[in-house]
């Protein structure tokens, strides 16, 4: 049984190779292998549902063992990885049809899945970093599948991701230099044994790496381009899983490597939580609010979702950074929930793009009549995303709010609440401009997406409901994980939280049942009234004018333009522009620097003379040689 952790890890890689080779035979072979092996991974994963494995030695490197392990938290993230990847594979069967290089695409998709699985299963920093690097460059290859523009986006991504990985590498090397072991448990033990000022540097360097991947605010600039230009299924993997891996990294960093008490020791306590964690919380808070504002003003559906991802991952990071049991649980739970609803939204928007070929919000509209399933999926997605009961996004956000309140981190709480309110604006924009309003004439013949593409939408919509009404399902895993890392889990039951200790109570089943009852009452009143009859979308109030087919009688461009007037002055400068300015000046500097290779022979030979005479000068300075 122990060996099968290796089997679990190798399954997606094998699947990738097989589907690549199978694709050379026939495309159906490719799909079969890809779906089969990714489902197999999921099935294998369920063998470990309640069975942590601590130590599975892969090999020995640099005098430190490379091990695989699985604990409830890594199980949770592995579950996210495998599920979303499986759905993405199913979704892209139809979505990617007709593009070139599909064998390679599936290969990459499964390799990325395997690499992310490897990250969650890693039991030491070396394994972790190994898979991290594999993940970064394979996911780069996925991003650039989306056509010409995506290449530029991918370039940005890979550069930032290399920077992040490298800063992580420095941190790992510093740990290795300090204690000569890289296994998580030993590292935690030894770090705690001898706190030192450089540990803060280690922490910061790690955090940079994770911030890039998780897209926390100052290092988020790759996200909006990469998510929007990549193929839809890739975007959902990126947003649903890749960001979560960054969050997982942060979790490991905070709780498996350093621990709250050590962090408290490293910097004197002045804030509600250890200074470092509080700082991370502020980064998260700022990314929640700022990216919400940016999302509100987007015209591009996928860009909107991309900024929304930054904002939502801010909640995850914020939750993790609070440091209390409730906060951690909230953060982890939100990671799961965000994976579900954000992938769902990327799938539905992907479905819209698949049928209409555009992701410009102002060109779309009225698709509800043509694509009801997609609409339903989007509806569930946005309700969950906005954190409105009774769906899952609400529960985890609520936990984070409560945790913040408990810790009296009120300013962060304000940011979190405001971000959530702001998200109503953009989710409404998203669903309104795509599905509601006027159906443009050119999309008259649009059909619902094929069944294979509906499957992920159905399943994920179900997920938003299930985890919304029965949060205890997820809390089972999270609580066990918290126990594993030595955090006392909060009280919970299947339907919610009994509360206590400064924390409010929540019972999701009551909310949803009363809501349904209210709906029934409203329906009764509605049904008592006269029968309605459907009218055409052009039969509309237009202040006396007649709306004809060629009229664009729709409000969708610049939806929140007036809001833009309020916030635009603030967004004149952005992190992206600053980075670009740095890059430009570095470029100029480098261009000057390389002028040292003048192409002149005499200059080159003079370098030699100068070097030797410098040595000679040094010797002469000393006066004598012998």
């Amino acid at each position, binding site marked *: 049984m122990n060996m099968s952790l290796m089997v679990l890890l190798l399954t997606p890689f094998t699947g990738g190779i097989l589907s690549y080779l199978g694709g050379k035979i026939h495309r159906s072979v490719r799909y079969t292998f890809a779906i089969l092996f990714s489902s197999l991974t999921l099935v294998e994963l369920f063998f470990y549902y309640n069975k942590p494995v601590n130590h599975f030695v892969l090999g020995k490197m640099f005098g430190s063992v490379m091990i695989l392990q699985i604990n409830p938290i890594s199980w949770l993230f592995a579950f996210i990885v495998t599920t979303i990847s499986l759905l993405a594979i199913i979704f892209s069967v139809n979505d990617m049809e007709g593009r070139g290089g599909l064998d390679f695409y599936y290969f990459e998709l499964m390799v990325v899945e395997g690499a992310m699985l490897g990250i969650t299963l890693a039991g030491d920093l070396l394994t972790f970093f190994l898979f991290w690097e594999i993940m970064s460059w394979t996911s780069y290859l996925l991003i650039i599948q989306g056509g010409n523009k995506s290449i530029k986006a991918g370039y940005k991504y890979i550069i930032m991701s290399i920077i992040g990985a490298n800063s992580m590498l420095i941190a790992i090397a510093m740990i290795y230099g300090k204690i000569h072991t890289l296994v998580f448990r030993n590292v935690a033990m030894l770090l705690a044994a001898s706190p030192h000022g450089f540990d803060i540097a280690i922490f910061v360097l790690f955090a940079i790496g994770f911030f890039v991947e998780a897209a926390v605010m100052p290092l988020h600039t790759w996200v909006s381009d990469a998510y929007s230009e990549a193929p839809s299924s890739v975007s959902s993997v990126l947003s649903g899983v890749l960001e979560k891996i960054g969050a997982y990294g942060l979790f490991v960093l905070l709780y498996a490597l350093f621990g709250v008490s050590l962090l408290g020791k490293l910097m004197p306590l002045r804030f509600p939580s250890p200074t470092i964690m509080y700082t991370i919380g502020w980064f998260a808070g700022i990314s929640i609010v700022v990216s919400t504002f940016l999302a509100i003003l987007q015209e591009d559906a996928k860009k909107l979702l991309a900024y929304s991802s930054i904002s939502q991952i801010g909640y995850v990071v914020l939750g993790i950074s609070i440091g209390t049991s409730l906060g951690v649980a909230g953060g982890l739970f939100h990671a799961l929930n965000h994976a579900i609803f954000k992938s769902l939204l990327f799938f539905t928007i992907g479905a819209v793009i698949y049928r209409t070929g555009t992701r410009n919000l102002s060109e779309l509209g*009225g698709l*509800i009549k043509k694509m009801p399933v997609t609409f339903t999926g989007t509806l569930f997605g946005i*309700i969950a995303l*906005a*954190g*409105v*009961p009774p769906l899952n996004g*609400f529960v985890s956000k*609520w936990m984070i*709010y409560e945790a913040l*309140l408990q810790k009296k981190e*009120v300013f962060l709480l*304000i940011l979190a*609440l*405001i971000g*959530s309110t702001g998200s*109503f604006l953009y989710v*409404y924009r998203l669903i*309104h401009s795509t599905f*509601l*309003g*006027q159906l443009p004439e050119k999309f008259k013949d649009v059909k619902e997406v094929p069944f294979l593409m509906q499957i992920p939408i159905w399943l994920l919509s179900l997920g938003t409901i299930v985890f919304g009404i029965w949060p205890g399902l997820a809390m089972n895993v999270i609580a066990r994980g918290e126990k594993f890392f030595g955090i006392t889990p909060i009280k919970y039951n299947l339907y919610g939280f009994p*509360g206590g200790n*400064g*924390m*409010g*109570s*929540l*019972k999701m089943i*009551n*909310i949803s049942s*009363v*809501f349904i*009852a*209210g*709906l*029934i*009452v*409203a*329906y009764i*009143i*509605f049904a*008592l*009234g*006269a029968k*309605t*009859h*459907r*009218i055409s*979308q052009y039969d*509309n*109030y237009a202040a006396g004018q007649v709306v004809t087919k060629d009229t664009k*009688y*729709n*409000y*969708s461009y610049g939806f*929140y333009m*007036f*809001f833009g007037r*309020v916030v635009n002055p603030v967004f004149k400068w952005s992190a992206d522009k600053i980075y670009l300015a740095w890059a430009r000046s570095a470029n100029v500097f480098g261009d000057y620097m390389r002028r040292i290779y003048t192409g002149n022979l005499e200059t080159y030979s003079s370098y030699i003379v100068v070097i030797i005479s410098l040595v000679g000068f040094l010797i002469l300075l000393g006066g004598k040689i012998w």
Partner: protein
Amino acid sequence: MVKNILIAIGLPLLAFGIGISFMGFKRKIGARIQRRYGPPFHQPLLDIIKLLSKKSDISHGIIYDLGPMIALGASILTIFFIPIPGLKLLTGSADVIALLYIMVIGSLGMGLGAGESANPNSSIGIARALTLMFGYDLPFVIVIISVLLKYHTTNLYAITQAQAGGHWAMWVLPLSAIVGFIVIYGAMGEHPFDVVTAPHEVATGPMAEYGGKHLGLLFIDHAFHVYIELALFVDLFMGGASNIGWFYVKMFVLFLIIVFFDEVLPRFRIDDAVRFYWRWPTIIALTSLIIVLIGG
């Protein structure tokens, strides 16, 4: 059990009754301020009955129908989480923070329905409504947080209990109460924040396409809405009440003040409204919050 069923049936009726009476008062008082005679006090009820009993009605699609229903259902949901004198109701299932989001469901349903109607006036109205909500939410959450911090609980019923005996939050946290009062204007869409439904600009905004029983449902919803806002403020800042009568009186006084200002103020442009909310109310609310933080 019987009591529970009675509450389940009675509470919505009570809330509706209170709400509809205030709607009547508003029209009457407003008319008197403008030196008109005004419609009869029960005119809103008559309107609702008229609308519901219309013989023909149009529909733009399922979500168009569903929108008002969701709005009404959500309002009914909400009232069960706002304690009335002597009853905890379901406050144990959702605390104040949850309540904030439960209250949003209605707007979402409303927005969906209005969006489906394919009328740009509705869309603009919803866009304004959401933006306005974003605007007043910032001071509002700060106010809520200061109250929660002050009373060390997130349970609305417990907050009400803590204010028993005249220790109203209004007196303890005057600045927060003032901001809360300003926020109610936005939440209820009263002047100067009635840009959402501004009939002269966007033809009553979200409701532009609605008529017949749909509009009837929305009227009922509005009655609930009035009740919710007022009851919430009373529970938060005015210490609830010992019996229904007092509760009603407190709500009425509050409502009276709101209506007086409502009738004499002009209208903010939407971005000015947001700017307004993010400036003074926010600063005042933050001041209050800091006072709470320091004072413990």
